[in-house]
């Protein structure tokens, strides 16, 4: 896999008459049909070291961000959660630790799910979490079947974000809660001067060292820049029919927490 940091190519290069069939893979423009496979390769190769890398890359700060998401969720007993893209169980385990009810983890990548299930077994959660291999754009869950939908650092990798948001709304019960934790646009100028060299130089080198796949972490840095800015993502949530849309910046906008409800 070769990832280039060159400027985005013109959509017309995808062929005339098919402007809707291309998407981004980091800074590359790729056919929509290829993105899922490219993303799949990234996560399959780093699955075993994924959680370790999160700690190293963020100096452990991702834990505070995830805690902030669960704080905002207000977990209650009997609450039924679906966590999408959380294959290694990071959100699901926190949800259970805070007294949540049932949780289903839906992730498109079997390697990530295998890591999560082993981790849950080690933590003594036998049968508390349902592990399902599925696509955020085509969730295999019944309409209005869950009280809450969470997704952390996943939607950036999804080909059609609008389809994933529509699916989130569909599976939520009326009164259900949507929360998305994702990288954002850094709002503090001084921080941005550090963040860009860090993410484009340090992260790929660190990724190469720890996982043997520097390209995967170059993709990470690029995909963060490709993801809609906080305001635009908020608009997409509203367009998908979610209500009471709000967001909070975390760590100067390096990450953002997006909240909405199905009313």
């Amino acid at each position, binding site marked *: 896999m070769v990832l280039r940091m060159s400027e985005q190519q013109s959509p017309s290069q995808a062929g005339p008459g098919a402007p809707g069939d291309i998407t981004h893979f980091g800074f590359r423009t790729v056919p*929509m*049909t290829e993105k899922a496979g490219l993303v799949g390769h990234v996560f399959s190769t780093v699955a075993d070291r994924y959680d370790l890398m999160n700690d190293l890359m963020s100096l452990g700060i991702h834990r505070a961000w995830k805690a902030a998401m669960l704080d905002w969720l207000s977990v209650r007993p009997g609450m039924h959660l679906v966590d999408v893209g959380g294959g290694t169980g990071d959100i699901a385990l926190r949800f259970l630790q805070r007294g949540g009810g*049932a949780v*289903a983890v*839906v992730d*498109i990548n*079997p390697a990530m*799910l*295998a890591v999560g*299930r082993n981790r849950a077994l080690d933590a003594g959660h036998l*049968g508390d979490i*349902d*592990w*399902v*291999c*599925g*696509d955020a*754009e*085509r*969730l*295999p*869950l*019944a*309409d209005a*079947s*869950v009280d809450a939908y969470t997704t952390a650092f996943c939607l950036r990798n999804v*080909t*059609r974000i609008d*389809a994933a948001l529509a699916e989130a709304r569909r599976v939520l019960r009326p009164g259900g809660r949507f929360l998305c934790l994702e990288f954002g646009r850094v709002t503090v100028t001084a921080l941005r001067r550090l963040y860009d060299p860090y993410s484009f130089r340090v992260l790929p080198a660190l990724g190469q060292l720890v996982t043997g796949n520097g390209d995967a972490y170059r993709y990470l840095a690029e995909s963060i820049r490709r993801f809609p800015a906080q305001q635009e993502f908020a608009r997409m949530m509203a367009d998908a029919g979610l209500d009471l849309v709000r967001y909070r910046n975390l760590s100067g906008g390096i990450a953002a927490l997006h909240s909405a409800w199905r009313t």
Partner: protein
Amino acid sequence: MSRTVDPKLLEILVCPLTKSALRYDPDRQELVSERARLAYPIRDGIPIMLVDEARPLDEGEVEGEVGAPPDLAGGRNPGVDTGGRP
């Protein structure tokens, strides 16, 4: 590691394509969507609910071919196009 699928999970799982109910086949370890005519494999106890990974059903495998429910009576594959996956 092989194990059966949680019955509670089966209550909320649907076919990702048609959103219709699934039939659990314990012998083949599959979740069958009659409407989409697809069988989703269960590997190591994890249902693989991806259209690309599903096995198309053979002609004789679809239950309820005779006296099919009304929503199946109109056509063989109502509203289903497995070729159009993005």
